[in-house]
């Protein structure tokens, strides 16, 4: 233990000196300066041996669980034969993964291009939308989060992420999330696409009102505008369906996926689109390339992750565990009305709305002390995001709920927690 404490201090010092001192400071003050070592199932262990249940999961990377042995085995086996591959060439692994994605995504989504992360997938989606439509405007929503790369950053609905890097891409128009009439008003002859997260994650687990996505789909059809749905956090069983848009029977023209596509093991993302949109690439076969996107190893890992999610009915399990969480949340809502305002939830995509913004960081600290990693959302610190691995067990759900209750009990005796405090 003494040795591990020393190692931890050294890691934090080096991280601070050679990467980012403010990040270390912020994580320390929130009590989440964990240095992950062992990882398994829904849990991870700090280098000092402290176990925590991971309800952050890199905002949804770990749907199949931490260090899933089946995914690890698939990668190990692949490494005996393959490497990343030459991106210029066709590859069996890419073809198989693209076919699999066409099978599991809704409607007529069929063709894929690959990247290494969500931002890259969104960049590609916007490029395809502009290239295919020959129009330039992109409508995005307030509090949206699509990644930190060029086009994706321009579609983020939070100024503080964007302002240091202005001027950004022109032609991006922001509207409120959940208001289809605002989209109708914003669409014009030069609108290429509307981009939405099916459920806003970073913005505070904002679940769209019923009818919203269907209405947006209708507007897009009427005005010949493409609909891009960002399923980067919501995809692969997270919400109780394979993709969140299936809750509302809405099929986008372009869908972006990443995070759990890589099984928590290997970075990979995909932009999936309807075949007719793929015609854009016929005269431009090399117009969008990614050296590491859809590497042979990444595709093998992604296939293993998808197979694991299907074989183990993780979407269904997410729905069941979500209901178990919900019963506990309902108790907490009754017992701690000065702390907890509402619960936003679809399956295991969950957000607790606190009564004020200062509660988020304080609760993160209390959760961490009790062995749960759960952090407030980037665009709204009054929301605690809970996105545990979908393999979480009923016992672990109860453990998290107990930690929430104990933390709330302790915080309710402290100052500055009520709506009007």
């Amino acid at each position, binding site marked *: 233990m003494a040795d591990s404490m020393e190692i931890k201090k050294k890691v934090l010092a080096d991280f601070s000196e050679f990467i980012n001192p403010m990040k270390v400071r912020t994580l320390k003050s929130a009590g989440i300066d964990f240095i992950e070592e062992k990882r398994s199932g829904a849990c991870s262990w700090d280098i000092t041996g402290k176990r925590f249940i991971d309800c952050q999961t890199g905002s949804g990377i770990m749907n199949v669980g931490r260090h899933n042995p089946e995914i690890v085995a698939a990668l190990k086996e692949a490494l005996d034969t393959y490497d990343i591959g030459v991106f210029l060439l066709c590859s069996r692994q890419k073809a198989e993964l693209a076919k699999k994605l066409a099978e599991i995504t809704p409607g007529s989504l069929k063709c894929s291009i690959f990247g290494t992360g969500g931002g890259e997938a969104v960049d590609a989606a916007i490029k395809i939308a502009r290239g295919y439509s*020959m129009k330039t405007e992109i409508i995005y929503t307030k509090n949206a989060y699509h990644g930190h790369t060029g086009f994706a950053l321009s579609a983020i609905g939070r100024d503080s992420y964007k302002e240091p890097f202005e001027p950004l891409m022109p032609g991006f128009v922001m509207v409120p999330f959940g208001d289809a009439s605002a989209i109708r008003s914003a669409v014009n002859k030069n609108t290429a696409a509307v981009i939405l997260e099916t459920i806003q994650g970073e913005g505070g687990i904002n679940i769209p009102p019923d009818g919203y996505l269907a209405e947006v789909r209708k507007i897009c059809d009427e005005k010949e505008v493409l609909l891009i749905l960002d399923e980067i956090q919501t995809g692969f069983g997270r919400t109780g369906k394979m993709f969140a848009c299936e809750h509302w029977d809405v099929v986008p023209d372009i869908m972006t996926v990443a995070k759990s596509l890589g099984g928590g093991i290997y970075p990979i993302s995909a932009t999936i689109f309807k075949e*007719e949109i793929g*015609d*854009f690439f*016929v*005269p*431009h*076969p*090399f117009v969008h390339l990614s050296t590491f996107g859809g590497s042979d190893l990444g595709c093998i890992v992604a296939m293993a992750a998808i197979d694991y999610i299907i074989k183990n009915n993780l979407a269904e399990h997410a729905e069941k565990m979500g209901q178990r969480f919900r019963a506990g949340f309902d108790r907490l809502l009754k017992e701690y009305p000065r702390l907890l305002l509402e619960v936003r939830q679809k399956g295991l995509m969950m957000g607790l709305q606190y009564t004020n913004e200062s509660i988020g960081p304080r609760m993160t600290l209390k959760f961490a002390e009790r062995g749960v990693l759960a952090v407030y959302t980037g665009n709204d610190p009054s929301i605690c995001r809970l996105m545990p691995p979908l393999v979480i067990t009923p016992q672990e759900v109860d453990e998290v709920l107990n930690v929430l209750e104990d933390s709330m009990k302790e915080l309710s005796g402290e100052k500055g927690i009520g709506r009007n405090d």
Partner: protein
Amino acid sequence: MATSEEILEALADYQVQCNNNARLRRMQRDWSRLLHFSAEDTGDWFTMNVINGEITFCKAGAEGTPDIIVTARSEDLCDMFWGDLNPSQKYLQGEIRVKANQEDVVRLDAITMIIWPDV
């Protein structure tokens, strides 16, 4: 060897095929080019004008300043416009030569792939 009339007949058919292909028209709607075709064995020249993906005319003679010049034997040009030969293959064999930027060369191949997927 193909006569100028035979090539013009093949060009006329090619124009109809391209202009009536909705997928191709949608795909090519951002593409406007003036093309010259040179039959190296007969010395005949032909001009094709494409505006926003629509072939607006094909005629004998070299008209205007071309964006693209395609040079081949007259029979190969004729066969190409009828869809009877794979121009990519001939291009790689050096029997069809294209003076254009690389993007336009890919475009020409893409057009062939859409209207004659089996060639």
